[in-house]
């Protein structure tokens, strides 16, 4: 028992330390090679210069980061509501599902870059942020819709029989059986959608171009145009940090909600 918990703590520590050590080693080699080979900084800046740029331009970059994060979170929340609502409608009405599912797929498989100009013209001329929100939502909502639908259909048939036996109403079956059953699937979909909402926002920012002028994607374009490569890297770094934070945040939510009962959140006992 005692040795079990120590080895567990050690393995948890290793899971943090090993990747961190690898990252530091990578940055060290990068720094060394760039200096030793005298690579021009507008081709590949050394990490030290990138961090310097991050500190110097932190005000501008942070403001852009909040802008991007704002749109990402809003798109994620709208996608969550639309996806879950869609899944509920799909599982309550077969007619609804066969009518709308093909269009959900069309929306999902059409590259967002090709839809973006249309959305920008229709709603984005005066309100670029609305266009960004719509585009990011389109990208983010499908995994939630399809995962939740699958989860609600994967209900244990014996439990369905049990609910029939006690004359459960449609609402009771949804509230007490289908939604809880779908929870692990929904949370899995949310983890994918969180990342997609960020990707959708960035792609939309790229397409929208200078009109927005404030998101992190625009900072990358702007820095590239000015050949300010260190700042380009700094913006990229913040974007990655954002994506990682979203992923781990949603993973934590998943663990918290499933830790009591779902296999995915429970360690094996052997």
């Amino acid at each position, binding site marked *: 028992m005692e040795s079990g918990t120590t080895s567990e703590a050690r393995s948890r520590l290793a899971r943090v330390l090993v990747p961190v050590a690898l990252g530091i080693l990578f940055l060290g080699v990068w720094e060394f090679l760039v200096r030793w080979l005298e690579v021009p900084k507008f081709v590949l800046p050394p990490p030290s210069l990138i961090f310097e740029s991050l500190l110097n331009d932190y005000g501008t970059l942070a403001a852009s980061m909040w802008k991007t994060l704002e749109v990402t979170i809003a798109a994620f929340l709208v996608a969550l509501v639309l996806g879950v609502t869609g899944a509920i409608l799909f599982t309550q009405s077969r007619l609804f599902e066969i009518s709308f599912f093909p269009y959900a797929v069309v929306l999902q498989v059409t590259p967002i870059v090709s839809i973006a100009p249309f959305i920008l013209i229709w709603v984005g001329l005066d309100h670029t942020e609305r266009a960004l929100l719509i585009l990011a939502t389109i990208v983010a909502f499908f995994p939630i819709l399809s995962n939740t639908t699958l989860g609600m259909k994967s209900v244990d048939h014996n*439990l369905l*029989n*049990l609910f*029939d*036996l*006690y004359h459960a109403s449609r609402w009771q079956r949804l509230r007490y059986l289908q939604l*809880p059953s779908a929870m692990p699937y929904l949370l899995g979909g949310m983890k994918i959608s969180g990342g997609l909402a960020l990707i959708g926002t960035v792609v939309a920012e790229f397409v929208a171009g200078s009109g927005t002028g404030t998101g992190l994607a625009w900072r990358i374009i702007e820095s590239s145009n000015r050949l300010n490569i260190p700042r380009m890297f700094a913006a990229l770094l913040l974007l990655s940090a954002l994506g990682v934070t979203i992923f781990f945040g949603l993973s934590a939510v998943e663990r918290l909600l499933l830790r*009591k*009962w779902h296999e995915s959140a429970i360690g094996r006992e052997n």
Partner: protein
Amino acid sequence: MANSVSLVAPKAAGDAPGAVRRPLIRIDGVGKVYQNGTVALADVKLDVRSGEFLSLLGPSGCGKSTLLRMIAGLGAPSSGIIDWPQARYDASGEPERSLGFVFQEPTLMPWATVFENVYLPLKLAGINRRDAEPRIAEVVGMVGLEKFARHYPRELSGGMKMRVSIARAIAVKPRVLLMDEPFAALDEITRFKLNNDLLALWQEQKWTVIFVTHSVYESVYLSNRIAVMNARPGRIMTELAIDAPYPRNDAFRTSPIYNEFCRLTSAELKRTMTDPDEH
């Protein structure tokens, strides 16, 4: 000893001579044909009497689970009727069955505690938590799990999960308890223990139990009466009365009369077997 054992099922055991009591459930000419043409049941006739412990015994594929589910109202018979002569019928023609069902698997909601799982049928009936609490505590105690009300199903053993399933079934105070091979997946020691506890509860609570099993030994140990079924098509071949007194306990399990009943029941099962490949 063997001479005292008779397997002729009296038509109205326990009734005063001449009195014709209405059965609790009357199954008459019931057949079930699935959409693919498989005949699961053909012309089943059976009266279930109030307060009896009746087993449906037969090999897999004989339609015993199908019959049990139809008694519960899960799926309608293709022919014949299942009538509840003592029950009131509602406007849509559904009888008020008043039953609890225990499935082959515990069929618990993994995201809910023991308490919440047992509360489910009461919740679905619109009873609020505070009013339901005493009854939940009572039935959880009846199955011996009072210390585990806050636990999740995954933290329980197979036998304990089955106890939760039984507690849930009896929470609504049913008149009839339908059990579909409830102990088939449990180890023998646990199964014997649950057999004894079930019998004790049955005697105390005066339920009518219909118990589906493929075990001769289990059906003899538990029942007043056994309906022997066979497959292709599924039907009731014969009815056997197990006239041994209750309470039955582990001593009964080793008694000559129990062994004799088991031997005779096995013989009946074999005699009526239509398919030589079965067993």
